[in-house]
Each structure stands twice: as structure tokens, then as C-alpha cells.
């Protein structure tokens, strides 16, 4: 029945060109990271001498960069801090976002429309950088890990997405649970959350990625290097070209090794995220469709 009609020559040319272009686009998307990956496994002296773009590994293969990274205590500190910010931040976000989305998706909640507008308005207008900065100063949170955890604890956009996901759960399920005497916490935990797993998974990934990659708030709120996330050390190394982060605990490393280590740290700080997202990919669409704020 479907589409087994003979394809015209122009159609064949189109399909070929389309496939070819998509391959090119796909290649362009990954090429920079492939370059970094191969550089990170290369011999430091070769990298320092030749530079250039690499799309194939350079012999001799070397793990020296990775061995060196483990001796930089800043990298370990940054990695540890990032884990604290990501795990703590994801938990905070999930608790706040799910509970708000649950309430705003209940038709029993009388001030629903008004409260939704209070939330939605923050997507249209905000105090901006400086008043936010002053707030953190006035709360005494400068140089505190809480500054990063609290200022990123809630995201209205994610809440609206989850609210719309929760709204698509049939009312009849909730009604029968309520007849059985279930309260809101039980309904949320046993009905709404299990039926919205895909949306929650996507929101969790997006929040985790945002927190993992976040550096700007740390750059204005945290001066204590012991509390810096990994991205701040990366910025120092990649953007400011400072070797300060690379001061090794043990011995001063050679110039060549420091160039190599740039690539190694980039890989170490990026690969965890790149390994996770393909598994959640098919649900992405649930996290980007927002449709309308009002339902």
C-alpha cells in the first residue's frame, strides 16, 4: 500500500543529497569533540610540537595526560564540588518543581489560575543580574555553597512543562484513589509521578546538565577556590590561559604536559554528560514542548 511506487530520478538525487548533507552536518557537530578526544590520548611532545586539527589518533598513544590530571588537586576539588552542586541541586529542583506542578495541575486547587500567573510572570520579567547579586550579598551567602544551590533551586519553565504532563493523567485515576482514602501525597507518589516518568526524567537531565555546566553564578558568588565547580577551573585553564589551576601537588610539570592536560580535563569534565543524554533522548520532546502557559 504505502510508497512502493517507483522513485523518479530527481527524487533519487534529492535523497542522495539530503543524506550526504545530513552526514556532513552530523560530522561537523562531533568533529570538535573528536579532536579533543584524540588530542587527550596523544603524546604531549607531539601535541606541543604540531598542534592542528586531529581527526585520527596520533601515535604513540599515551595516557600521560590522564595520569597527570590525577595529580592536580584543583581538578579533584572541582569535580567533587560539581558533584555536590549537581546532586544537591537536582534534589532541590525535583522536590520544589514536582510539588508545585502537582498542585497547579489539580482542579480542586481554587486559586490555581492566580498562582499560575504569579509563577509565569517570572518567565517574562525578572530583577536581573545586579539585584540578584545584592540579594545574595544581603543574605550573607557570598562564598557559601548555598548561594549556588539556592539561586538555581527552582525553574518556572520546567514547572510548567511538568504541570502540563501531570494534567494529561486522567482524572478518573485520582478520583478512584481519593475514594479509597488516598491523600495528595499518596496520589502524587503512587499515581502522578509513575505515570509521568518520562517527563520527570527529561527535566532531571536538563537540570543536571545546566548545573554541571554552570560557571557564571560561581564566578560572581564564590571566591573561595575550594568551593569552585569544575567549570570554573576549566575557564581558568581554557579561557584565561592561566596555569594556576595546574599547579601540581607534587612536581612542576613540563610545558608540553600542560597543553595536553587542557584536552584531558575537557574530556573528563564533558564525557559524563555526553554518555547520559542519548539514553533519555527519545523523551526530549516532552521537555521542550511547552505549548501554552494557560491550559
Amino acid at each position, binding site marked *: 500500500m504505502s510508497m512502493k511506487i517507483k522513485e523518479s530520478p530527481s527524487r533519487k538525487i534529492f535523497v542522495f543529497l539530503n543524506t550526504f548533507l545530513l552526514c556532513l552536518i552530523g560530522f561537523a*557537530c562531533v568533529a570538535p*569533540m573528536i579532536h579533543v578526544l584524540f588530542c587527550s590520548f596523544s603524546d604531549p611532545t607531539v601535541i606541543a610540537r604540531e598542534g592542528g586539527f586531529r581527526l585520527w589518533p596520533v601515535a604513540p598513544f599515551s595516557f600521560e595526560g590522564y595520569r597527570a590530571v590525577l595529580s592536580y588537586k584543583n581538578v579533584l576539588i572541582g569535580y567533587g564540588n560539581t558533584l555536590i552542586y549537581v546532586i544537591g541541586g537536582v534534589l532541590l529542583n525535583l522536590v520544589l518543581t514536582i510539588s508545585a506542578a502537582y498542585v497547579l495541575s489539580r482542579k*480542586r486547587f481554587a486559586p490555581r489560575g492566580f498562582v499560575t500567573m504569579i509563577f509565569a510572570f517570572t518567565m517574562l520579567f525578572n530583577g*536581573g543580574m545586579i539585584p*540578584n547579586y545584592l540579594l545574595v550579598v544581603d543574605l550573607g551567602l557570598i562564598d557559601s555553597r548555598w548561594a549556588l544551590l539556592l539561586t538555581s533551586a527552582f525553574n518556572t519553565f520546567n514547572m510548567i512543562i511538568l504541570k502540563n504532563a501531570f494534567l494529561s493523567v486522567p482524572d478518573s485515576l485520582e478520583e478512584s484513589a481519593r475514594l479509597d482514602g488516598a491523600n495528595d501525597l499518596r496520589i502524587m507518589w503512587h499515581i502522578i509521578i509513575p505515570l509521568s516518568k518520562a517527563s520527570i526524567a527529561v527535566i532531571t537531565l536538563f537540570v543536571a546538565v545546566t548545573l554541571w555546566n554552570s560557571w557564571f553564578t560561581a564566578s560572581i558568588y564564590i571566591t573561595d577556590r575550594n568551593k569552585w565547580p569544575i567549570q570554573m577551573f576549566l575557564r581558568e585553564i581554557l579561557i584565561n590561559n592561566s596555569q594556576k589551576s595546574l599547579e601540581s601537588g607534587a612536581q612542576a610539570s613540563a610545558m608540553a604536559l600542560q597543553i595536553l592536560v587542557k584536552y584531558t580535563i575537557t574530556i573528563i569534565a564533558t564525557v559524563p554528560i555526553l554518555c547520559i543524554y542519548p539514553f533519555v533522548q527519545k523523551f526530549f520532546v516532552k521537555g521542550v514542548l511547552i505549548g501554552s502557559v494557560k491550559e
Partner: protein
Amino acid sequence: MRMKQLLANYRQNKLLYWLILPSLIFLFIFNYIPMGGLIIAFQDYSFTRGIWGSEWIGFENFTDFFSGMYFGRTLGNTLALSGLDLLFNFPAAIILALMLNEVRSARFKRTIQTVSYMPHFISMVVAAGLIKEFCDSSGVISSLAVQLGGKPQSYISQPQYFRSIFTISEIWKSVGFNSIVYLAALSGISEELYEAARIDGAGRWRQLFHVTFPGLLPTVIIMLILRCGAIMNVNFEKVLLLYSPSTYATADIISTYVYRMGIIKQKIGFSTAVGLFNSVISLILVLGVNKLSKMYTETSMF
């Protein structure tokens, strides 16, 4: 009367009210208090006197900004970077989605999707580091230019190249991820519509114009509303990581200027005023475009 209804509703659904309370408190502290803090835009703010003791100076911070040399430059750069993004990046995602929609093999389609999402998940710091490396005097672009007979130069430190570098890298970083919305809209178009068009003798191009485009239009309009509302919000972190005093002429945007004036030079009142100008224009834009769209297409956000 309404208060009574609310009270009755609370008695029946106490748990709901308690569940929303934490996020409302968060919203109040971290969103609404800073909005109140915007009044310092009308003050000669000093840290020692604080928000209650600083001198009121009316619109002086605003007039200072509008009459200074940075107003035209930062506004122009903001609009230029945003305009280029709207012109190239916005349609790029739609085109990619249309191209992917023509692919028959599900596996090939999924693979291209996976790799095209990848740049979105790379941190801004790493992306900026890569851009700097590639556009440096010893980078890929420079060595390509040398092979074509040019001489090695650092592109990232020259103002005339900043906008191109910014726009091209922005497409690289976001085109795949931005195409998700359009792919979803395309897969939502009923196969029956295509079937009917074929029976009517429509070729592939006619199907594209009469079935695909109309099906895609509501999504395009919603995304355009969001995009137009964000015209004043250029990817601030990226500019901050990529620009340098030598490229300020084309790279310095309103929000990086706010950052330098407020966080670095601590001119709090002035920088708040500049930021407020930016936010107000944004708000007017998003409400305006939303209204226009409601009038002409029945598609709107609010």
C-alpha cells in the same frame, strides 16, 4: 465572600496549599524580592547606606546611560548579534527538521539526531575554549587561510570577525537541539493529509507547501514569539567568555556592560538601571509579539 470560598477550599485541600508553599517562598525570595530591588535603579546606591538609606536621584542613571557613548554601541551590538541569530539560527533548525523528516531509515535519523544534540550538552566554557583554540593564530581556521595563501592571524581578537564567529558557533551549538520541537510538530501531521494530497495529484513540492508548512506553522509562530521576546537576551555567558577589550567594539552587549559596571566596578545603581532598561524592552517585545500573533493567527502563549 471570595475569602470565604478560599478558606473553604483550604479546609478541604490543606495538603495542596502546604505543598505549593515552599516553591512560592522560593519564588518570592529569589524572584520577587530582586524585582523590588530594581528601585535602586533610581538611586545613587551605596553599599554602606543600603537600599533604604541611599539617595534618590530619579532618572539620572538612565539619562547617564542614554547620553553616554556605550548606549548606542551596546544596544547596536545586542541587536546585531540577536538579529543574525534570528536570521540564520532560527531557520536553520527548521531546515534541519525538514531534512530529517525526509529520511526513511529510522536508525540513520536517530544517529544524526544524537550527534546533532551533542554540542548542546557541551558546557559553554568548553565550547568557548574550542572556539578560541580554532580561531587562534595557530588554530584550524588560520592554518586553512595559510593554505589558501593568507597569513596566520588570530580571528577571535579582531572585532570585524566577532559576529561571524559568534553566529556560526551558535548554529553549531544549538541547531540540533532546536530542531526537536519542529520534528515533533512534523511527526504530528496526520499521514491521511498527505494521502489525500497524493490522491488529488499533489507532487512532493505541493505536499510540502500545502500540507507540511501549514502543519508546522503554529509551532514556528510559538517559537518566533519566544525568540522575539528574547531579542535583548543574547547568550551573555558566551560573549563574556569570548570577548576581550580588543573586540568590545562589536562584541560588548548590554548585559556584558551591566556585568562590568555592576559586578566589576560596583556602580550598582547605574548598572541596575541599564539592566532594567533591557528587561523592560524584553517585556514589551514579548507581550507585543504575543498580541500580534493572537490578532492574526489565533496562536499565542498567554
